[in-house]
């Protein structure tokens, strides 16, 4: 495998993502509470393997999940097949690009969770995504997205950051050792995270996968100007999913905005 394989562009990393992200629950209650306020239908961009769209649909909302990766969507569909028939009618899964989509429907709430918006590296892509969101919102509809609050001490380190090695049981209970390194480009405000997973398969053969993941990192006011430039009004900024106010040490920046069009 080429070392420049993008994360989630193959079946294995999609399965790994589904397995590793399954326990992430802290944000689901937050997105559900927004759905309660904004009403359906709900659209999630970059829905991945359905970690959020499935519980939102289970709660009774009509939901559309959009993702670029057929591998991620295949897993989401597999999980959906195990759900009650009535719920399956609530959830539509669509393969598509979050920076340019046309679903011919208007939504009460659009969610861009788990830092997915950061996969849009250029201002043109970011604008195109937000303009598509504005076109797909009902009057007064709500857009909510979360990005990480960049750690200045990580950005400041010359030569990038070696990630702490991690060991965990993979989807087939294989013992995976994961190492990684992140480089920051301060001029373009982007990072490249290279990760490497190693394990021994059942036959005892050593397996190695290597991936790259490129993300843009946003600063607080940058995101406020981005939203404003694309005709959104920022209604709230939270520092975490418990709706705590944003501070310098907050792990997240969660923006809730309304279309001003």
């Amino acid at each position, binding site marked *: 495998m080429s070392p420049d394989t993008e994360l989630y562009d193959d079946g294995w990393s999609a399965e790994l993502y589904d397995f590793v992200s399954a326990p992430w629950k802290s944000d689901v209650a937050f997105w559900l509470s927004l759905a309660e306020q904004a009403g359906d239908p709900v659209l999630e961009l970059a829905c991945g393997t359905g970690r959020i769209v499935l519980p939102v649909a289970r709660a009774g909302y009509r939901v559309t999940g959009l993702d670029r990766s057929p591998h991620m969507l295949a897993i989401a569909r597999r999980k959906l097949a195990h759900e009650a028939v009535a719920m399956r009618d609530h959830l539509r899964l669509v393969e598509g690009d979050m920076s340019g989509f046309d679903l011919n429907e208007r939504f009460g709430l659009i969610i861009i969770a788990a830092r997915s918006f950061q996969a849009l590296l250029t*201002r043109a892509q970011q604008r195109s995504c937000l303009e598509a969101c504005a076109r797909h919102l009902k009057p007064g509809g709500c857009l909510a997205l979360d990005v990480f609050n960049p750690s200045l*001490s990580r950005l400041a380190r010359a030569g990038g950051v070696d990630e702490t090695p991690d060991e965990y049981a993979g989807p087939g209970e294989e013992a995976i050792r994961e190492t990684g390194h992140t480089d920051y480009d301060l*001029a373009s*405000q982007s990072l490249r995270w290279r990760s490497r997973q190693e394990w021994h398969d059942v036959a005892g053969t050593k397996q190695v996968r290597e991936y790259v993941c490129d993300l843009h990192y946003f*600063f607080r*006011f940058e995101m406020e100007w*981005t939203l404003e430039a694309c005709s959104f009004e920022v209604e709230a900024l939270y520092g975490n999913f418990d709706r705590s106010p944003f501070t310098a040490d907050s792990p997240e920046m969660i923006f809730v905005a309304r279309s001003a069009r």
Partner: protein
Amino acid sequence: MSSELSRYQDPWAAEHYDAQIAWPDPDLPLYREMAAESPGRVLELACGTGRVTLPLARQGATVTGIDISPHMLAVARRKLAAEPAEVRARVTLVEGDMSKFALPHACGLILIPFRSFQALLVRADQRGCLECCAKHLLPGGRLAINVFHPWLSKLVALKSAEPHEYIGPSGEEVKAVSRVRFDFAEQTLTSHITYQITSTAGETRSHEHVLRLRYFFRCEVEWMLEACGFAVEALYGDFDRSLFTGGSPEMIFVARKV
């Protein structure tokens, strides 16, 4: 004197400004070139004591300088009075707020040199300033803004700046010591600056004021300019028009009114 005296309201700071800013004007050639290329009038926001306004007028530009400080403008007027009549005739100095100003003329070029834009701490004032700029530009007119590129490796650890020593306007020896505090959530830095002053007769005293600045990141400024009706034409990392990189000391945005 209150330790919360703002540098912009401090008459003492105005008298000392030219002596303090021992900058060999590395930005002037760029602004001179831009002024020579631009049709119509030039407007400088936060012109201070005329460091940029006066040389541009000397090379033939018709320049308006706006500043919020009457003390800074008094120094600029004193310097202007020493210029030849034709230079004096090309300069208009106006006391005003860069975030809300109204002038009778449109301009071909607006300059906001030397981090003055960073005195605008909140987005409403930043927007106010840029919208005023757009209103005062001729079609196709250009805006140049210089802010510092946040020095992240220092930002995370900086508590005090290097002491700065200079000779004041009356020959006094001055040593300036800054205590710097960052607010990373609001992207501001506050310098409490203490000046230890020794007069030529050997008497000592001290003076204090506060300088509060917003720091900006690259993409933030680009979005801000777009949101306020500008298209970014160039971003330089230094005054020699070198390309902006992660290690650039400055960010100089040149934007055109859309």
